Structure formats: C-alpha cells, structure tokens
C-alpha cells in the first residue's frame, strides 16, 4: 500500500534517476579527463573576452563542477581594465560594472539532452583516442 502511494506521488522510476546520474558523472569524468579540450576552451574564452576587456591571461582558471542537476563550467577570469571604447567595434558591447576578478558560472541547461549527449561523446572520443 505504502509502495503504491509512493509510486503514485513519485512516478519517476529509479532507472531514470540512474540514467541521469550516469550522464552527469560521465560528462564530468570526460571533461576532467580531457585537459587538452579544457585548455583550448580556455584559450578561446580568453580570446573572446579580450575583445572587450583586458584580462590577466596568466591567471585565468576554467573548471567544471558537478552540481545538483547539471555540470557547470566555472570561469574565473581576472579583468585588468577596460579596452579603449574606440577599439570596441560593436556598439552593443555590454558595459562592465565590476572591474574586480569576475566569476561566471555558466550552467548547461538540462533541456536539450540529445545535444549534450553528443557533446559527451565528442569528449569520450577525445579521451579514448
């Protein structure tokens, strides 16, 4: 009876939970195992951000962390100063408020599962190769 009620109020079978946990743990395993991928991601990130602000490239840090329901990318990119406005070609460049080292946590949203799976596999290929 209790089992029946539990099932009524918690309809998600535990295999779904297992699948989800497995997906997350492997995503984070593969990211941790592929330092070259993380390194080139970091280089690209710095390149993009450097178009708008001067960053301290030597002290940038990009890590991945498994949180409750997502794997989050945490980028710690110290900003040294603003670029002169004339060099910022795009008028829509967002103004920077805090000149101190900014932390950005970009969490991958849980919705588009298929896309992320594929990304995991890219990493898997990199790791296995």
């Amino acid at each position, binding site marked *: 009876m209790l089992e029946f009620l539990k099932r009524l109020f918690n309809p998600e*079978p*535990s*295999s779904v939970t297992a699948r989800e*946990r*497995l997906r997350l*743990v492997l995503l984070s395993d593969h990211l941790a195992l592929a330092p070259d991928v993380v390194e080139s991601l970091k280089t690209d990130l710095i390149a993009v951000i450097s178009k708008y602000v001067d960053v301290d490239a030597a002290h940038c840090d990009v890590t991945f962390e498994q949180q409750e329901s997502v794997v989050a990318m945490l980028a710690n990119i110290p900003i040294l100063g603003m670029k002169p406005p004339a060099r910022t070609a795009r008028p829509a460049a967002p103004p920077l408020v805090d000149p101190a080292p900014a932390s950005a946590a970009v969490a991958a949203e849980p919705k588009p599962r298929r896309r992320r799976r594929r990304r995991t596999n890219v990493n898997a290929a990199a790791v*296995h*190769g």
Partner: protein
Amino acid sequence: MHELREEPLAAPLPAQRGRCIVVTSGKGGVGKTTTTANVGVALAASGARVVLIDADVGLRNLDIVLGLEARVRHHVLDVLEGHAELDAALVSHKRLPSLKLLAASQTREKDDVDIAAFRGLVDQLRGRFDYVLIDCPAGIEKGFQTAIAGADEAIVVCTPEVSAVRDADRVVGLLGERVKITLIVNRLRPSLVRRGKMLSVDDVNAILRLPLLGVIADEPGVIVSTNKGEPIALDAASPTGDAYRKIAGRIVGTDTSQPEIPREATFLGKLFGGQR
C-alpha cells in the same frame, strides 16, 4: 621451455596463432571470473583449445569457479620466475581436456608480476592454444596493465549499475584503440528493467557504445553452479548456459545472431526446472 609431451598439448599446433582475450571491468564484483570461466568452458566445449590465466594475483578464484582448486600445484608466478615448467602448471579441466587453467598465486602481490615476462608467457601460449583468456583483476593499476599487456581483444563485463558503467567507461578509455572491445552485460534482472527499476542493456550501451557480445541474467543457477564449481555453461538445459554458449559462438564467429535479452523464468519453469 620443455618439449611438448602430453597428449592435449602435443596436438598439432594451431594453423594460426591463438587469440588473446582479456576479461575486464574496472569495478570489482561484476562477474569477471564467472564470465571468464563460462566463456572458457563454452569455447572448449565447442572444440577449441583454451587456456585460462588467472591474473588476479593475490586473490585467486578462477580455480574455485572451475572446480579445479584441488588440482592446482603451481601458479603463474612459479612459471614466470622459472620455479615450475609451464606444462606442469597447466591444470586440465575434469570434463573438458582441451581446457587448461594457469592459476594465480595466492600468496603474492600483483606488483610482483613482470609485465614483459607476462606478455612473453601469453605470446608462448598463443602458439599452442586457440584462445588465451585472461581473468583481469579489478582496478586500473599495475595488475590491470599487466593483464591487458598481451591481449588484442577485450571483453568488458558490466552490470546495469551507475558505478559499473562509469568504471567500464574508464576501462574502455584505458584499453585504447589497439584493443578490439566487446561488451557483456551481466546480472540483468528483466523484471526490474520492465518496472523501470534497473538500467536496461540499451541504457548501458548508450554510454559504452560497444559491440554487444551477450547478456546474462541475474539468476540463481549461476550462484548454484559456482557453489558446485561447475560453470553453468556446462549445463545443457540452462538458458543462461545457452547464453554463454552463444557468446562463445559469437567469439568464434559461428553464431551471427543478435544477443537476446534474457526473459523471466516462468512460474512452471521455476517449479520444475530449478537447480538446487
């Protein structure tokens, strides 16, 4: 090495060198030893010359599962260190003379095994047997590296659990592209899968993406057969034994059927067909 004397070993050399397959998983307790024993038995029953090497030095168990523990006189380190001749260390199976066991050393450590010497031993055995099956220790340390050193094929054994799949994924990465890898999903409980309480074979292989060699049900017969030291692959009436025989057929290449997902034993089947 000694001259070939005894009849099964003095049989004509294989036309081509034997295949070396390592049975591995990363995680412990998923059924590597049971798998090695049963696949070895099924291969030998199909007529192949098979040698099983227990590479789990310090935790010797393959002899128990095969029911050969009383016959073991020498072990793999005796051979590698020159204390025993290879022929003296190979133990013949009671019912299948073409199946030999090279037991692990119980009182030594995995680190005592020299990788180059082990690879040399495997190489030597491949000249005399059709199949060299290696029961790999759990873990990914030196014992694992030694066990996989001479193999060009691997069977990854994985149970439908998050931890086992994670470890299997790691092992697949470590095996690299040199090794041809296939998958056995072990200890599947079809009724749990149906009720959504266990990962399915597809769930497991969506992650591992390996050619599926077979699926083995979690059933009492496997435990009973281990108790007796008679691998279930010897039981002609057992569906699980049949699954192992089909796995052997797929390895040899004579069975091209897709692996079946085990079905639940029926009530009547349980009543009349059960092993004790």
